[in-house]
């Protein structure tokens, strides 16, 4: 639709006089109008339902030409906005580049192609992979959280250097790991990530209403840093890898900011501080499947 930007989105009933729709529902119209009220530039098109009723799966009632007429495609001619053409005329990507060349009597520079032809064509083409569905990359996975884990729950860490320690749960991060804190002054567990599977959720909860966790505490904040710049191959690289963890000022500040809020709430519950200081362990006759956490 050329010139589609509807100026007045606040009109409830007739929003787009250019489009003639058959059988549009009013409430459905109002929804996009409310959404569009915020952003004018975004496309606020309402798509018509299929004009080609199905007789059976894969078989429509009307032929191609009939559908052409029904969809009024003779009317719909889209041209790209002109500014882009102008831009494209200016912005052709550079195909070659001139690079200086050393040595005398060499002419000083060469014209070099930026995108070169492939230097190798395999004799056998790789066969086209079959389509697969449902195989999502990790970033698109669905993150689940056990119902027993809510903000403020006391968790028992089972693995890692803090195993057995009881710790307060803050929130779940984007990768699904749990953001957890000791607090530090209570059991020396800093703001840290923990894996949901390697944690026991107890039924003890600290009331964390109104506690603000800084927004910059994300996975990238906690991710281990690895520097990879082996200027000298083999030899003395083993030292430069950051095996020693260095405590930054920012971590200290964040820890303080979060812990001060939580400690106040922990002090309100009697004996909770001592509970968080203690560690969990099994002894004779204690069976985890029989324990109520």
């Amino acid at each position, binding site marked *: 639709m050329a010139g589609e930007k509807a100026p007045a989105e606040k009109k409830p009933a007739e929003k787009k006089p250019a489009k003639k729709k058959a059988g549009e529902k009013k409430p459905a119209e109002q929804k996009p109008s409310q959404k569009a009220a915020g952003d004018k530039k975004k496309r606020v098109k309402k798509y018509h339902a299929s004009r080609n009723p199905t007789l059976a799966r894969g078989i429509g009632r009307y032929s191609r030409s009939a559908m052409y007429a029904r969809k009024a495609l003779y009317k719909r001619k889209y041209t790209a906005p002109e500014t882009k053409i102008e831009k494209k005329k200016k912005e052709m990507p550079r195909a070659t580049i001139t690079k200086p060349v050393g040595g005398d009597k060499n002419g000083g520079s060469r014209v070099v192609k930026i995108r070169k032809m492939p230097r190798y064509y395999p004799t056998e083409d790789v066969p086209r992979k079959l389509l697969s569905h449902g195989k999502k990359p990790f970033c698109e996975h669905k993150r689940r959280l056990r119902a027993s884990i809510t903000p403020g729950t*006391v968790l*028992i860490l089972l693995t890692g250097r803090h195993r057995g320690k*009881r710790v307060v749960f803050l929130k779940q991060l984007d990768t699904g790991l749990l953001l957890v804190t000791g607090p530090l002054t209570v059991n020396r567990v800093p703001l840290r990530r923990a894996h949901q599977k390697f944690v026991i959720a*107890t*039924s*003890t909860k600290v009331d964390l209403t109104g506690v603000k966790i800084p927004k910059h505490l994300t996975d990238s904040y906690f991710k281990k840093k690895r520097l990879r710049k082996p200027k000298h191959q083999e030899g003395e690289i083993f030292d430069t890898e950051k095996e020693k963890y260095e405590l930054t000022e920012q971590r200290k500040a964040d820890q303080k900011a979060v812990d001060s809020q939580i400690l106040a709430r922990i002090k309100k519950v*009697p*004996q*909770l501080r*001592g*509970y968080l200081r*203690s560690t*969990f362990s099994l002894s004779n006759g204690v069976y985890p499947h*029989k*324990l*109520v*956490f």
Partner: protein
Amino acid sequence: VFKRFVEIGRVAFISFGPHAGKLVAIVDVIDQNRALVDGPCSGVRRQAMPFKCMQLTDFVLKFPHSARQKCVRLAWEKENINEKWSATRWAKKIEAREKKAKMTDFDRYKVMKAKKMRNRIIKHEMKKLQRMASKKGKKPGKPEKAVKGKKQEKATKAKKPEKAPAPKAQKAQK
């Protein structure tokens, strides 16, 4: 040798089966293995029940054999069996066991702390008395009573009022 007999009106505790944990009164004896049983105040319908799943209690009600439920209920309420039952040690032990099984991790911690404190106090008093006894020769009777008094004091001062005294009361009985 035997103190509790199967008789009409004997109140029994059901130990297993669908009605486990409830009290019933024996209304009639059917044959060697089964009795007609009714628990109007404990939610058990009048039915036949094998003796094996019943454990006899000390309570006996007075009603004629095959009395109907209304009579059983009257007798039950007259004797106030429910209250008497919850006052018995048997019932208290059962309750304590249930509470212990339901303890959460935090409760277990609190009980541990309470027990530790109690034991420390007891030990302290014992040591005091031992020192006194070793210094001044034998002192009969009195020191032991003082220790028991202290035990009860600390039991009532529990942090978790229901659960802590329950295991501690058990310990005191031992």
